[in-house]
Each structure stands twice: as C-alpha cells, then as structure tokens.
C-alpha cells in the first residue's frame, strides 16, 4: 500500500530559491541546498527543483546545485526546467537527480519522453504539465507558464503517457503561490486521465488543502512551496494531522 507523499517544491532562479504568485513577481526566499537540507531534516518525503530560467547558464547552475545537495539529502530528488535532450537528462541524473521532469520540450518533441524512459527507466521520467484555466477547460502552457500551446490537459496526458513516463506532475499556474488550495477540478481531471502516479502542485496553504488533494482528488502526492517557505505550514504537523484524518503517511524517518 503506497503512502501519500509530501513534496517540497523549490523554484530556482540563478543561485536562489524564488517564489512568486502565478509564476510571476518572484522574490528570493533562500538558498537551494540549505532549504533542501532543512526540509530533509524535517522529514520531507521528496524534493523537486524547477529551474524557472532554463537557459544554458541555468543548466550549469542547476547541476552544481544538484551535486551539492545530493551529498546531504537522502530522499528522491526530481529536477525540471530546461531538460531538452537525452543528454540534459543524463547530466542531471549523473549529478544526483533521481527523476527528470519535462514540460516545454516534451510538448514540442514528445519523443524525448520516450528516449528518457527507455534509456533510464520510466521511474525517472516525469511529465510536468503547467495548466491554466481557459474557458471551461485547462490548457497546457510552456516556458514557466508564459506560452500557450493550444493543447488541452486531458488529451495531452492521455497522449504523453503512451511514451512511457512514470509519473505526472501537474501545476496549476492560476493557483501557484496563492495558498488558496489546489485547483481540484484540474487535479481530478488529471487523476481521471491516467493510472500513473499523479503529483499536484500550485496553491497549497493548509492541511485542509492537502487533505482535499490527497483524499478528494486521490492524488499520490502534493507539492508545497510558498506555504512551506514562509512557515504557514510545517512538515511534521501536516503529516500528523493527515494521519489523524486517515491518510496513509510515512511515519519512520
């Protein structure tokens, strides 16, 4: 019986962890390695780094961060943002990442998902989807929530999972950094579009938000960023409260 996962999401810009609202207006919140270690010590189940710049410089910067942090955290580490080729994926995995998350490049070249999953195994190929509410549906956006694709979330996930990915990370751009709760409609849509593990991101502000995401939307894990960085929620407290609500959580460290 798999336990539900609490995942810390660290958005990276140059050497800093940053956080904005709806992927905009970003402010520096700390150091990537320091925050990852702090959350590891506090009992986080997993860590996700997303490079918000995703330039060539960004990639070199990210490998340095990953190499440093892999020395001191012993839970899974996912790296995304700027993974455009099989070589980019290999570089991140060699630096110490366990999974690579692919969004923009996967939309323009879905075969990348297949290359990564057949070469390194589907367990390390994560499909990252950034979605915005558009009329009565959700559209896939790329380049850190900036560019429209004309592709809709349900269709894209059904198609992308054919390429052998092992997990889906769904981010609501509308809720990112707002602490207003996950977009449950979006997350339920994704849950119903795939049998793969689904991780929700964007909007977590309270234990109640976690509960809704894990119970009502039946997600396998939830990312938390802003609310963790500014201390609105605390890892042990969430874990204990969710366990009291009957959610199956990791107990031992």
């Amino acid at each position: 019986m798999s336990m539900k996962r609490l995942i810390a999401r660290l958005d990276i810009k140059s050497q800093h962890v940053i956080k904005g609202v709806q992927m905009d207006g970003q402010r520096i919140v700390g150091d990537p390695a320091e925050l990852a270690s702090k959350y590891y010590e506090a009992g986080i189940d997993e860590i996700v780094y997303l490079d918000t710049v995703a330039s060539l410089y960004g990639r070199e910067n990210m490998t340095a961060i990953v190499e440093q942090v892999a020395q001191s955290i012993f839970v899974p580490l996912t790296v995304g943002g700027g993974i455009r080729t099989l070589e980019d994926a290999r570089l991140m995995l060699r630096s110490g990442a366990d999974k690579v998350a692919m969004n923009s490049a996967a939309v323009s070249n879905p075969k990348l998902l297949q290359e990564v999953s057949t070469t390194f195994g589907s367990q390390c190929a994560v499909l990252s989807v950034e979605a915005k509410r558009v009329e009565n549906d959700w559209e896939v956006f790329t380049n850190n929530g900036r560019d429209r694709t004309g592709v809709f979330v349900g269709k894209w996930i059904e198609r992308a999972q054919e390429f052998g990915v092992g997990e889906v990370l769904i981010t609501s751009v509308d809720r990112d950094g707002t602490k207003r709760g996950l977009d449950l409609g979006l997350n339920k849509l994704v849950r119903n579009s795939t049998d793969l593990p689904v991780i929700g991101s964007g909007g977590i502000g309270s234990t109640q938000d976690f509960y809704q995401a894990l119970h009502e939307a039946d997600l396998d894990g939830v990312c938390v960023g802003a609310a963790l960085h500014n201390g609105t929620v605390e890892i042990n407290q969430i874990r204990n409260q969710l366990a009291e609500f009957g959610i199956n959580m990791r107990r031992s460290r």
Partner: protein
Amino acid sequence: MNTVVGIFDYGCGNLHSVARTCAKFSDNIEIVERFQQKSDFTHIVLPGVGSYSNAISEIRTRGLDQLIHGKLNDGVPLLGICVGMQVLTTEGHENSLSSGLDLIGGSTEMLSLTKSDKSSRIPNMGWNAVIPEMSGNENQLFQGLENGFDAYFAHSFEVKPNDAADISALSKFDGRNLVSAVKREHVYGVQFHPEKSGESGLRVLKNFLSIKTDN
C-alpha cells in the same frame, strides 16, 4: 577492517547517488565499469534503475558477471538495489525473456494490478512499509530498524523467488505481499532504494557495509 566498496557501473543512471551515500560509511569507494583482474573489494553494490534486459546485457558485455561470481566465491557480500536485485534472479520476463545472474532462484515479472487496493499504481512509486521476515541474526541488513520501517520504492517489476527461504522482507502492494528484500548466504537484494529512504535507508547501507567477508 577497512572497507573497499565496489559500486558496479553498467551505464544505468543513478549509481552516483548510491556512491555518495556509501561514502558516508566508507572511505574507499570504487566505481567499477568493467572486469578487472586485480580487485580488493570487501563489498559489492549493484545499483539499478532501468530495465532488466538492458542491465543484464551491459553487465555481461562489461564482464562484470565474471567479477561478481569470482568475488562471491571469495565470500564478498553483495547488495543488489532495485533492478540490481532483480538481475540476481534466474530470469526476467519483460517483452522477451532474459536470463539473469541466477544467484536467487526465481523470476522477475511485471507488476499487475487487480485494484484491490486503490492506492497502488504502476510504477509503484513512493514509500511503503518493509517487514523483515528473518531474525536479526539471520539478516544483519535490517538490524536496529523497526519492524515496518518505511522505504522508497520506484519499480514496475517484482522478484518472485522459487524458495520462500530466500525472502528476507515483505511489503504490501495492491492488497497482497510484495517481496521487498531477498537474501541467500552473502547475496542480498532490496527492491527499495536505501540511498533514497531517509535515515532508515542509511541504516540499511551502514548495516550492509558492516557485514564481514564470509570465509
């Protein structure tokens, strides 16, 4: 005694995180990419991500299978992690059948779901409780760990040993038992990733590296 840990590299992804984690407990970590005549390992770690057939064919191409068999004859303990555990079996059933190292009699088969537990998915990704099946004396790997410690899994295939005596730990998947660790003499295998399982996982690796050569 000083340990010398041979981390066997067959070109599949995450060996560096395994190497970094073992480096917490040993000053001598060697990445071994192919057969070598002279080797003084006291421990062998076979990390693993990717597919059974790729892993076993790379292991053979690089001559690492010969090195493994030779070292096991000298009594050197071996730990297979995830796919590294799966290739210890006699055969793997993926798209086609491939023969394994045959150190643990049995097969590696794709996970299947009957949906009797709706929280289970394929791949099986995430934390699960591990229940050791052997007492501490029989299996030093889990010494000092609580019965039902949590560990991180990421796999789509599972090991089915022929002999139940080779099963050293069980976990739950889809409402049934899943073999999460095996042991036969000084050959150990874990389906989970000890290098990614927090403090409990570190303890598993520390325990492995304190197992002495079996002369």
